[in-house]
Structures are given as structure tokens and as C-alpha cells.
């Protein structure tokens, strides 16, 4: 296997992009990535596009070729693959692109993620189809309700408090004020989060990430080719994926995402590092409880002690292990299939020293992208 590097990154603004269609959003991210890498376009050998549900969100399928077409690649006839894994679609697309380069099949590929969700009124219903529609959602358990049951059990078993969840939201909103492309760029107080209405008890409005429009692109190249294009290649040291039972009720323990445990242990093994070697991370805070559980399942804290990290400020921007420097899904916005790539963009910017006012120090960054309630997990470890 060859070493694989990120040589260019691009990201659209995330949010309710009323004046932009699916194609506009993708192109804004794609052009930025090509310019960042200094590519003309002809160098691209394949495209992997993460997208959860264009068929339901915009009524358009076959979007991998559509993306290549509107990226100006139609006459180059590059192969294009759409990748779907719920809201882990972006992470899985990144892994497919990574494998294509690592294996020697391709030298330069695009890993993209895109979602246009605001053209329909039922965005959460569609996102909830990343859970088990027939046996969870039909029974009244949409994604917020499922994460709420996870949260209640975590609170009961380990003493995690609603205040801890609110602190995750406050932290991520604060980080997003330093990110020009974030959806929500204003600080919120702990009281605002705690006083927001319940969506699914014990989760409140400010515990739930907003589903939004957005696209992200990273360009991957083999180590040898990367050196031709950039002095600051960001290497992917490991990119692992694991799956688990689709429905929460089938799992061994609902307060642990075994797919995250499995994927991260495998990633640490391949990268030859330990959890303590990670300097900063982007994790999948689709709901605030998911960030706290991620601390535990990634090995940053012991099982049940995740809330300590947020209480003690360890994961704050100026803490020892900053998490979600971008603002996370909660405040940067959760553009579903784009999120896994968006996390890679943030980590690459941080490792290059291009993260502006939210810049943190570090040699090793980690991203965690989750599908549904944990039936898919993708863990990627990056370094300079």
C-alpha cells in the first residue's frame, strides 16, 4: 500500500443556501479544492462522492456523474462513484478514494461529499432513514428519539448531566464563531442551551445539530505525486471503517458504539499510535451525547467518564485535546453526506496551519464520522 496525501481542500458555506442548488454547492467546494491544489482538472483520475439521499432530497439520482459533469470533467470521462452510508456517506467516500490511491489504482482522485436538504420540508424524516425505518422509525423512534434513549441510559448509568450535554453545544458554537463558513456563528450561553425546548427528552433543541446544505471536497494523491503539487501534503495514516447492527435495540450496549471502538482500535494499530497521541479531533456530534460517547469510544476517556473532558475544558479550543475546532456538526452544520469530507477539510487546514483564528497546535488529527446511531463508523487519522 502507498502513502496517500491530501493536496487540496474545498468547502462551501454550510447552512440554508436558498439561492444555491445542488450543483452550485458542489461546484463552489470543487473549484476551491482544485485551486487549492493547483490542479487544472485533467489530472483527476476518479471521483468518489458521498451523498445520502439526493433521490429524496432533490429527486435526482445518478449524481456522481452529475457532479463530474458540472465540475467540468465530462469530456475527460473519469469514472465516478456515489457512496451512500447514511450520514457517514462522506467518510466512506473518503475511504474509497483513499483505497483507490493507496492500492496504486489511481494517482489523483477527488473525494467529495454533498447534500442539498432545504428543498424539502421533511429533512429530519429523510435523515432518520439512516436508522431502521421498519422497526425503529415506524415505532416512533426517529433519530432524536434514539439518541435521547442513548443519552438517558448514559445519564442513569454514569451520572452524565443535561448540563454536560449543553456544554458540548456551547463549546461548539463558540468554535464556530471563528469559522467563516459555519452555519451558526454566534456564541450561546449555557442557560440558552438548557432553557431550549425539548425535542426528545432529555435532548433539547440545542443538543441537536441542524441538518443543512453544504458540500466539501478533498483531493488525494499518492505521496510521489503529492510532492509535485504542494509543500504541505497532509498524510492519511489510517482510514478504517466498521459496521454494527442497524437498529439500536439489537446492540450489545446502547451507551457504547462498538463500530467506533472497533474502527478506532484498528486505526490506531495501523497508524502505530495510541489515543493519547491524538492532538485534536473532529467527531460526529449530530447530537451532543454522541460527542461525549465518542470521547469514550475513541479512547480519550474511560467508559462513563466522557463528560469529565467537557467539564474540565480538555476538549475546548485552548484545551489539551481540542474537539470540533470547526464548530462541529452542531454549529458548523450537518450537511449529511458532506460531513465526513468536511471533517477532513478542517483537519487538513489545522495541520497545514491554515485554520485562521481557530488554529490549534498539533501533529496528529483524528476524524470520526458516524452513520445513523452507529451502524457505520469511519475513523481517519491524519498527520503532516
Amino acid at each position, binding site marked *: 500500500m502507498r502513502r496517500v496525501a491530501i493536496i487540496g481542500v474545498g468547502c462551501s458555506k454550510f447552512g440554508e443556501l436558498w439561492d444555491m442548488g445542488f450543483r452550485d454547492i458542489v461546484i463552489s467546494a470543487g473549484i476551491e479544492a482544485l485551486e487549492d491544489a493547483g490542479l487544472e482538472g485533467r489530472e483527476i483520475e476518479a471521483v468518489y462522492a458521498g451523498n445520502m439521499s439526493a433521490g429524496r432530497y432533490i429527486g435526482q439520482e445518478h449524481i456522481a456523474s452529475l457532479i463530474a459533469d458540472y465540475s467540468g470533467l465530462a469530456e475527460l470521462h473519469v469514472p465516478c462513484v456515489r457512496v451512500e452510508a447514511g450520514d457517514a456517506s462522506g467518510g466512506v467516500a473518503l475511504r474509497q478514494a483513499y483505497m483507490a490511491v493507496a492500492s496504486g489504482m489511481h494517482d489523483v482522485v477527488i473525494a467529495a461529499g454533498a447534500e442539498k436538504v432545504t428543498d424539502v420540508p421533511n429533512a429530519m424524516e429523510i435523515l432518520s432513514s439512516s436508522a431502521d425505518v*421498519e422497526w425503529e422509525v415506524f415505532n416512533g423512534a426517529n433519530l432524536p428519539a434514539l439518541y435521547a434513549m442513548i443519552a438517558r441510559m448514559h445519564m442513569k448509568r454514569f451520572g452524565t448531566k443535561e448540563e454536560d450535554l449543553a456544554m458540548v453545544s456551547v463549546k461548539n458554537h463558540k468554535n464556530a464563531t471563528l469559522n467563516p463558513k459555519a452555519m451558526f456563528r454566534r456564541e450561546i450561553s449555557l442557560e440558552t442551551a438548557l432553557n431550549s425546548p425539548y425535542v426528545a*427528552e432529555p435532548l433539547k433543541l440545542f443538543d441537536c445539530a441542524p441538518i443543512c446544505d453544504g458540500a466539501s471536497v478533498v483531493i488525494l494523491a499518492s505521496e510521489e505525486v503529492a510532492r509535485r503539487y504542494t509543500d504541505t501534503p497532509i498524510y492519511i495514516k489510517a482510514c478504517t471503517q466498521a459496521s454494527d*447492527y442497524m437498529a439500536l435495540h439489537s446492540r450489545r450496549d446502547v451507551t457504547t458504539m462498538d463500530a467506533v471502538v472497533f474502527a478506532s482500535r484498528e486505526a490506531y494499530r495501523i497508524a502505530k499510535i495510541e489515543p493519547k497521541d491524538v492532538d485534536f479531533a473532529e467527531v460526529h456530534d449530530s447530537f451532543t451525547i454522541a460527542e461525549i460517547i465518542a470521547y469514550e469510544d475513541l479512547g480519550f476517556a474511560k467508559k462513563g467518564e466522557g463528560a469529565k473532558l467537557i467539564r474540565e475544558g480538555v476538549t475546548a479550543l485552548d484545551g489539551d485535546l481540542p474537539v470540533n475546532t470547526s464548530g462541529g456538526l452542531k454549529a458548523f452544520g450537518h450537511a449529511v453526506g458532506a460531513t465526513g469530507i468536511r471533517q477532513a477539510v478542517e483537519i487538513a487546514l489545522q495541520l497545514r496551519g491554515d485554520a485562521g483564528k481557530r488554529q490549534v497546535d498539533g501533529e496528529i488529527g483524528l476524524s470520526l464520522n458516524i452513520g445513523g446511531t452507529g451502524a457505520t463508523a469511519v475513523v481517519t487519522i491524519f498527520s503532516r
Partner: protein
Amino acid sequence: MLPKFWRKIRSRYNLIGSHCENCGSYFYPPRNICPKCRRKGKVREVQFSGYGKVLSWSVVHDGVENFWLSKPYIVALIELDEGAKIVAPLDCNPDEVREGMRVKAVFRKFGEDGEDGIIYYGTKFVPV
């Protein structure tokens, strides 16, 4: 839409799941393959007693369309006495729910596809 719902009616109405005679595990909804034994598994159909206990729950204020008539509603993660777990609506006062509370399955209306559409029924749980 109709066949998609009808072909699951036996399991939805009567809590029919699976039991692996090789390892003793119970599953709901039914599975054809035991995820513990795979090819060595001997999976048979089983009807659950309908009794169990609440492991976790949520009072849902912004939920699934079929349930909007009764918003807020409760969904619970329930461990059936045989060992399988199920996520299902819990029909009781939100203040009543406790971890470990004994519950039993009941046949209830879930919702309908508009005024002219079919009516969905299924299994909800109530306190014993």
C-alpha cells in the same frame, strides 16, 4: 405502500420474532440468520410473551408523522422477558415511567395515511 406494511403484520401485531436453537438467542424483529452462530445457527420462529421491562425511554415532542396526533408521545427501549430488545411506543403518563418498569404488549392503532388511506396498527406497550 400496502404490501410493504401487510407482509410484516404477523410480527407487528403478534410480536413474532426468532429464536436460535443453537445458541439460545432471541431476536425481534425476526431474522433468517443468527448473527452469533451464522451457518451453524438453527433459527426458528417464536412468539414472545409480550412482557418485559423498560431500559430507557424518551418523551418525544417533535417526532414521527404518524404519532403527531398524540404528541408528545413516549418511545421506550424494552427488554422482553425472553431477552430480545425492542423499541416501541409506550402508552402511559410521562411521569409514570421508570427504569425497570414492568410493561406488557397491547394491540393499538398507530396512525393513518390521511382520511382515505389505510390505518396502521401495531404493538404498543403499557405498564403492567
